[in-house]
């Protein structure tokens, strides 16, 4: 009896190796860590031009003087034309000495043209592939993805780290969409492909992330600029901080406020033919810059608070209007709100939501409080 138990335990232990498929020992120096994947539309047919960049670890090792490693670039970049991303990765095995490894993929860049054709393939690749790092970033490039991958940045050793780390600034800059691959896939599935993706504009030695790409039914339909994106972020409750600038009457120099605390509430106030939503952000801000001669007293603070509220209202409405009128795509979560909190009402709108959304009435009621005014009077 005991012997049988021991044999059984042994077999089960061995089964772990076989069943889990955990037999793929590949040493760290036999892998290429793909940092970026760039997806562009290929010149021919309906194919994709997929570009992988990966660091040449030998060249980036911290050996000071040898850092250049013979002068070549520390980053290797390979591209191929294929039907799909996975096929492209497989094609690479004909050309590369090591295995492509996606667990450290930080950035997936989709070229504008490819995005206009549809990103369903990318979503599918990401959801089937078990390797890809879900905390990576995905964004749409204004122009071609390969241009973005050519950027020779001086700030970080790796382009992927450079791009991905820009998103860390979201706590004090809310003018881009802060979204990870994981979030992107969740919302893409739940909304049938209506999402906002960050927009990346490549330069020569750096890139700029700001604004948003509006994806409707997995297809790029247009862009939001940075201020519109800020407005949308307010609605989505994604603003963590950031600066708001406006001019007082008769002053040359603007007043700059920095948001230190914010909470946004969205609620349904009326459900007629078209629903009416009220968005009420509660903002606590610090004054960081003012015109030199400005006297800040209690009444001035009151008036600045008014100005700030006015400014936020404007920004929000501008972003919302653009989505409603120009793109007619609900990426603001109104439908989701109804589905989650007012399922009865949602039943009523659901069928025709695509047509109802552009006519949804939105009122914004911002309440601002100024807390810090700096050291001087």
């Amino acid at each position, binding site marked *: 009896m005991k012997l049988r138990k021991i044999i059984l335990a042994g077999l089960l*232990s061995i089964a*772990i*190796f076989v069943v*889990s498929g*955990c037999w*793929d*020992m*590949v*040493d*760290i*120096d036999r*892998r290429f*860590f793909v*940092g970026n994947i760039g997806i562009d539309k290929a010149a021919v047919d309906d194919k994709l031009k997929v570009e992988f960049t990966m*660091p040449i*670890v*030998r060249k*980036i*090792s*911290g050996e000071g003087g040898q850092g250049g490693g013979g002068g070549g670039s520390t980053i290797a970049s390979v591209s191929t034309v294929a039907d799909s991303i996975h096929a492209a990765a497989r094609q690479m095995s004909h050309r590369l000495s090591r295995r492509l*490894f996606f*667990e*450290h993929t*930080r950035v997936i860049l989709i070229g504008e043209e490819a995005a206009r054709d549809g990103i369903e393939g990318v979503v599918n690749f990401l959801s089937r592939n078990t*390797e890809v*790092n879900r905390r990576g970033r995905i964004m749409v490039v204004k122009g071609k993805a390969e241009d973005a991958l050519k950027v020779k940045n001086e700030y970080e050793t*790796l382009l*992927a*780290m450079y791009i991905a780390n820009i998103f860390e600034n979201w706590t004090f800059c809310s003018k881009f969409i802060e979204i990870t691959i994981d979030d992107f896939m969740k919302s893409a599935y739940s909304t049938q492909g209506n999402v906002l993706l960050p927009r990346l504009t490549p330069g020569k030695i750096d890139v700029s992330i700001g604004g948003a790409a509006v994806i409707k039914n997995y297809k790029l339909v247009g862009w939001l600029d940075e201020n519109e994106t800020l407005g949308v972020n307010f609605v989505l409750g994604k603003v963590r901080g950031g600066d708001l600038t406006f001019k007082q009457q008769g002053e040359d120099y603007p007043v700059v406020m920095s948001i230190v605390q914010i909470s946004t509430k969205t609620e349904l106030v009326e459900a007629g033919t078209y629903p009416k939503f009220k968005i009420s952000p509660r903002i606590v801000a610090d004054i960081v810059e003012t015109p030199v001669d400005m006297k800040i007293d209690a009444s001035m603070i009151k008036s600045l608070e008014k100005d700030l509220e006015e400014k936020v209202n404007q920004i929000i409405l501008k972003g919302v209007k653009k989505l409603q009128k120009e793109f007619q795509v609900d990426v603001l979560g109104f439908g989701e709100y109804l589905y989650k909190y007012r399922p009865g009402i949602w039943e009523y709108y659901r069928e025709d939501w695509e047509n109802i959304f552009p006519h949804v009435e939105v009122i914004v009621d911002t309440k601002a409080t100024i807390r810090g005014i700096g050291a001087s009077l």
Partner: protein
Amino acid sequence: MGIFDTLGSRKKTEIFFERDMTPDKNRKLYKDIDENLKVFKEYLADCDDLITREFVMGNPERPKHRLAMINIDGLVDKRLVQEEVMKSLMLYARQTPLEHSVGDKFFQLIKEGLLTVAELREADNFGELVLAVLSGDTALIIDKLDRALILNTKGWEKRGVEEPLTEAVIRGPREGFTETYRVNVALVRRRIKDPNLKVKTVRLGRHTRTDVGVLYIKGIANPSIVEEVLKRLNKVDIDGVLESGYIEQMIEDNWVSFFPQFRRTERPDVAAAALLEGNVLIICDTTPFVLIAPTTLFSLFHSSEDYYERWYIASLIRLLRFAAAALAIAAPSFYVAMVAYHPGMLPTDLALSIGATREGVPFSTTVEALIMMLSLEVLREAGIRLPGPIGQTIGIVGGLVVGEAAVRAGIVSPIMVILIAINAISSFAVPNFSVAIGFRLLTFIFLILASVAGLYGVMLGFLGLTVHLVTLKSFGVPYLSPVISFKFKRLRDLVVRAPLPSLKERPEYTRPVDKTRVRDSKVKERGGGEENDDG
């Protein structure tokens, strides 16, 4: 032929293989001194270190009383024998009229009136006498009497009480156990002046007849554990016991385990503390290492200093030890699992820098780790065996060769050197060397597991380890107690150490008869008194 004849002399005298010499104890002494001496010499034939000294008492010209003294050269204190035995009997005794005392009266006179040695006892059989002589006592046999005296004249070259080498402390007594049984017992007794401290001695080893003492405090130690220890000791039938390690391995619960089921110590204060917690001590002659039973995994992580220092620092250091133990077991295996199987779990920067250091290393991570770990073990072993000054040289040369040169030559990566160094240092941060060595072994097993199955293997290893630890027992006490039956109260003196006044009870795993450690004292009332003065 002559040689064989002497070797064959056993046909006359029985060779005693029983450790308590039972058959020989039945062999009574004769009344004739010559007969007795002859038997004695048969027993100890061909033992050139035997000293027999025959002498007479009273008037040497009309000898009436013949005596003989037998002992072993080197085991007795010669000065003591000369001053207190020979002089007393041969010189001072002349002032006493002996003419009329014969037989028992004479025996009584010698025993009670003439001999000035501190400890003596009677014996009437050869077994006891021979054993006493071999233990360093002196046998005094008297003509016309079938009784003899055993005089305690033990005194051999021995090491003094010195600071223990293996358990150095910053704060705490500097005394360590020695190789002499009685000294060791005395060192414990000096700390616990309690008639309840019991010492029970058994002799183990058919040839060595080593004194093994079982010490416990009656009223604290659980009688069932004491009984079990004695029972197991009495069952041991081995030719020799040269170190307490023999006993440990003969009476432990599970000899397959990597984990020691006894705590061993060189420090009398640790031994005394263990007694007070309800443990049983096993003190073995000829070794300074004293065994403490029962033992739990956690008690092996505790050091005497934990109780001498303030509780914050003691708790912190204990936590560090547990962290070090985790590193000691799992550091190389985790590294191998991460690097060879799951590089995606490493932060990108770290993965790249590890990858960069691995660039150009010809071996797989596992082989690399094995090379480093094995060379470290070799260095450690060589360092112990070599005499002090050379040992240091080996350390330096080995450190340079293994650390610097191996990296330069591209055989191992620098990160591996760091890792193995941390791993080795961590394993010796555990205060008990036997555990540390067990951990070293486990490290290898985990490494192999990690190299065949990645993190699954490591987890499998931990699972197996846990299963093993849960089933392991030391003298009926679960090895993982007190966590095995969880009670928050018991955690006070486990991974951290609570302030001493709050440790009101003895640890539970020994199942002590009397649980109270700290009684509510009147210290607090002092504060109240001062307040009254103010009012």
